[in-house]
Every structure is written in structure tokens, then in C-alpha cells.
């Protein structure tokens, strides 16, 4: 019944030529997604990955346990001095992320292009 969480890691550059790392999630993000979300984030060296976009445009299902994993990434990124932008959430989950207060620590963008341009 649960769909696996898939993560594709891509690189891009911002207008200044600085590297942007994009984590493209797809499938479900729930309590079983710890390795996919936290594990993938932790596999990235904080020294080499200063600007990260978490893209949710291909996510089919997200619940509170999945949102908690996103918060854990924000906690770890804040400690490491990395910047996180979030893209591709549906209007409903943009509302939910705002309710929870996540937008105080990671701004939301409609798509990854806008998210990358805003670093």
C-alpha cells in the first residue's frame, strides 16, 4: 500500500556560478522515508553542498511523519550553515508548511527554477 520514496540528486548553478544541489523526491514521504530523506541529505558533504533545493513536484503523498523528516533536514542544514529552498509543493501543502512554520526557515517556491534563482 505504501509507495517507496525515490530521490534523485542533481546539480545546477545559480546566476553567480555557485553550485545548487537539487533533491528531487517522488512517491510517498512518510514514516518509512527516513533513509531516503535524511540518508540522502546526510550523504551530501556540507562543505560542497551549500545551497539545496528540496523539490516535491513529483511527490504523491506526504503526511506529518514525512513533514517531520523535512524539519529534521532543516535542523541539520541550519547547524551546517546550508541554505534550503523548497519547491513544487501543491497549494494545499504550501498552506500546511506555512501553518507549521517551516517557511520561517525555508522559503517556498512554485518550481525549482524559481527556488534556484532566489539563492
Amino acid at each position, binding site marked *: 500500500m505504501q509507495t517507496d520514496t525515490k530521490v534523485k540528486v542533481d546539480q545546477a548553478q545559480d546566476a553567480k556560478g555557485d553550485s545548487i544541489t537539487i533533491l528531487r523526491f517522488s512517491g510517498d514521504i512518510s514514516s518509512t522515508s527516513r533513509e531516503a530523506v535524511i540518508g540522502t541529505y546526510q550523504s551530501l558533504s556540507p562543505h560542497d553542498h551549500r545551497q539545496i533545493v528540496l523539490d516535491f513536484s513529483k511527490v504523491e503523498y506526504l503526511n506529518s511523519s514525512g513533514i517531520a523528516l523535512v524539519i529534521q533536514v532543516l535542523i541539520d542544514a541550519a547547524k551546517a550553515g546550508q541554505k534550503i529552498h523548497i519547491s513544487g509543493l*501543491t497549494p494545499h501543502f504550501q498552506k500546511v508548511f506555512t*501553518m507549521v512554520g517551516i517557511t520561517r526557515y525555508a522559503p517556498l517556491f512554485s518550481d525549482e527554477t524559481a527556488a534556484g534563482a532566489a539563492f
Partner: protein
Amino acid sequence: MTSAPPRTAVEVRLPSRMGYEKVAMSTAASVAKLMGFSPERVEDLKTAIAEACINAIEHGNRFNESLAVDVMLFISPKTLEVRVADNGLGARVIAPPPDIDRKMHGEEPPRGLGMFLIRELVDEVEWVTSSGATGSYVRLVIRLGDPTGNPK
């Protein structure tokens, strides 16, 4: 004396296994669409029901797959009431709203968002604890055309 309008009921019985909350979500979404709820309200309802079912599976039935989570939808002309029942004692303490600053500083765990989301996304919510003879349930209500203009 007027009698209450008749209510149509839909019931779904789920195993206490993570992922099956999606069955309740899709059933409730179908019912809400038939009743004329807006797409935004349908999404609110889906998330609230998913969180209620997850709480029932995890905290109520403690992942015991021999126990069921019963989801009952009561349809009235202007309201949809949902009851999500399990075999646990029920929520005796309602979790306080999450504090993102405290979470970011490690002063509270990242988890603990479910009850907050339910409260924020529906018009009315009640956690009913077990009376001994029966299990506990959470009762959610969403209303068509909220007269207060509440943007929920």
C-alpha cells in the same frame, strides 16, 4: 419538536497497517466531492483523515494488524462528519501546537504535528476516550459553505 435530518453513512474498515490510511482518504474525498466540497476543502479533509488514521494505527492499535481502524462517514445536507475509531484508550492529552523555533533548537522533537494539522484543517474536532465498553474515536466535522467565511 423536529427530528434531525436523515444521515447517510459510509463505513470503511482498515487493517492497522501504515499506508492503509490512503483508503480512508480516497473514500472520504469521493464522498466530499459528491457533496460539493471545494477541491481545497477536499485536500484539507484528506490530510485530516490520514492523520487521524495514522494516530489510530500507531497509538490506538499500536500496529496490531489483528485490530481494525473503523472509519465512518455521516453525510448530512450541510456537514460531513467522520469518526475514526480504534481499540485504544484514546487521546487523554491533546498535544500543544508545534513550535517550529523549539523544534529547530532541539527543544522539542520534529514529530508531533498530527493533532495540530487535524485541528487546523477541519471545522470541528473532538477526541473521545474509551468508556471501557467501547473503543475511542476522533470525530471530525467539515461544513459546506462555512457561514463564518473561515478560509480553512
